[in-house]
């Protein structure tokens, strides 16, 4: 049997998600025995032409050229999986979606005329059909391994969509919101990371994006009782998954309230 071909693609991103593949130190060689890394520039200068059986796409679409490139990649990919918050919801760079990009450009670049970029940073699914999403900023390498193993065995990967709290409790971490009064996004955020932040005494900051049924309104209300103001809520929701529907909405609601109250 010929090995299936794997391609790893990069759009606007930090490379952290694709690095997770190389961070599978114990499994990397076993993976390459089961799947042929046909196109993965961060790891190999060998490039085998498509079509590919499995494409992992990292990064968000921020240029007109990338918007075209993703369509070509989709055409060459049998099964296309987005890896990470950038690819899934635009990533941290989606904060530009609220801003005047020309102003952003001039803030950062000496010669803004030479910068050609779209006004928005968007997830891959806004451009092409995506077969599966791995959440996280960065993705969890265990979930990545599960995805690859499931792909090879033709089964559905075990990727839960419930809240971070479930993993937090399985891990035995006392709730930081209840026990310390620390605001935590865990109850509205999808599990997958293993509930790391509460285990380190900090609130979850939402890098796996919204869970399946997030009640951001109720959580925001409770954060306020813990002393978080609307600005803090805006900052919290406008993080690494700022452009994901439910967080975007929650951030906008808080922003409107903040503007109303602060009257800047």
């Amino acid at each position: 049997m010929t090995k299936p071909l794997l391609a790893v693609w990069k759009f606007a991103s930090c490379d952290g998600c694709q690095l997770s593949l190389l961070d599978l130190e114990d499994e990397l060689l076993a993976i390459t025995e089961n799947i042929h890394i046909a196109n993965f520039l961060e790891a190999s200068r060998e490039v085998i032409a498509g079509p590919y059986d499995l494409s992992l796409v990292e990064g968000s679409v921020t240029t007109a050229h990338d918007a075209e490139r993703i369509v070509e990649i989709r055409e060459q990919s049998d099964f296309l999986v987005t890896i990470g918050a950038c690819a899934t919801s635009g990533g941290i760079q989606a904060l530009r979606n609220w801003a005047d990009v020309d102003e952003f450009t001039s803030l950062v670049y000496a010669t803004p005329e030479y910068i050609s970029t779209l006004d928005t940073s968007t997830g891959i699914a806004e451009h092409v059909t995506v077969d599966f999403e791995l959440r996280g900023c960065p993705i969890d390498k265990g979930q990545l391994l599960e995805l690859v193993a499931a792909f090879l065995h033709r089964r559905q990967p075990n990727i839960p969509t419930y809240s971070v709290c479930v993993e937090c409790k399985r891990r035995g971490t006392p709730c930081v919101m209840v026990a310390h009064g620390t605001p935590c996004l865990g109850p509205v955020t999808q599990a997958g990371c293993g509930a790391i932040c509460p285990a380190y005494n900090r609130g979850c900051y939402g890098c796996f994006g919204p869970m399946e049924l997030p009640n951001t309104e109720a959580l925001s209300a409770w954060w306020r009782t813990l002393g978080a103001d609307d600005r803090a809520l805006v900052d919290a929701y406008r993080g690494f998954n700022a452009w994901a529907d439910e967080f975007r909405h929650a951030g906008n609601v808080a922003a409107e309230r903040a503007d109303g109250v602060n009257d800047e």
Partner: protein
Amino acid sequence: MEHVLSIAGLDRLLAHLAADGFRVVGPTMREGTIVYGDVSSAADLPGGWGDEHEPGHYRLRARDDDALFGFAVGPHSWKQYLHPPTLEVLTIASLSGEPVLIEPDPPAPMAFIGVRACDISAIAVQDNVFMGGAFVDRHYATRREPTFVVAANCTDPGGTCFCVSMSTGPGAAGGFDIALTEVLEPAHHFIAWSGTDRGAAVLEALDTTEATAAQVDAARRRVAMAAESMGRQLDTDGLPEVIARNREHPRWDAVAERCLACANCTMVCPTCFCSTFEETTDLADNSVRVRRWDSCFNDEFSYMHGGPVRESTAGRYRQWLTHKLSSWWDQFGQSGCVGCGRCITWCPVGIDITAEAAAVRAEEVAGV
């Protein structure tokens, strides 16, 4: 016979159990909470610390005495040991060849130190689920059967406790090998008695003195006082029926506005037993079946092809409350709630099961 056990005697008890081959676990302090962990002497226990419980709120509180069990309950429950949150239940080695099914060995026997009366009831509830029916869960049973239970009667209940309403506490009526009541005055000691022969044998070996009637009485009074200071109450009179006939109550939608569907209540609940099975193949030719705690608040919990049966938070909250207070009776002939108060304290937004049940009762839907 009741014994007087000194603090040194407690140390001897723990050492004795360890020497008998038990892994000894009990309350310890971690990150501002009292949670279970391995203990080897009284010094590992949260001496001088109490706890403060309100809906969605928990804080440690320094006591003005040295009580070792001067708190109510923490976020952990004993189910984490008897029904572990994540457990590899089966390995299927070499899938494509001649598959071999391998079950894990049970862990070393455990001794639980400081089990509250409500938690003894909770353990009994789970015993019923996993061992009381036609099929016995061997993962549970091999943990549960050898477990040595040292109860500690409650003398300082928390603001979310309602064991009296559920008739499960604050004193343990049975289900223990040894029971302790902590007495702080005049000298710090425990009144101890056994509930099983092996408990009696251990106590005999500890070099204790026999308690006088007055000492026993003083200890009883402390537990009786605890019964007077419950943080909460639940009117259980006809409650299973009330809940069962109010499946269409507006309160379910009202609570769904506040509920995060985050599943914390079910995770901290000492009786919630639900789990999911995940089959994970590795890159070699093996498959591992993992059992993980699951919750009726999760979308996939009620999933059937096409979508979840319980799509809304209202439906999920109703399932939780109804199961705890009503349908558990139909299924297992007892209450699924023991009144420990954990779900109230550890709900990140402070939803209170006693308040929700009372609200449903107060405004029963007419004509159902």
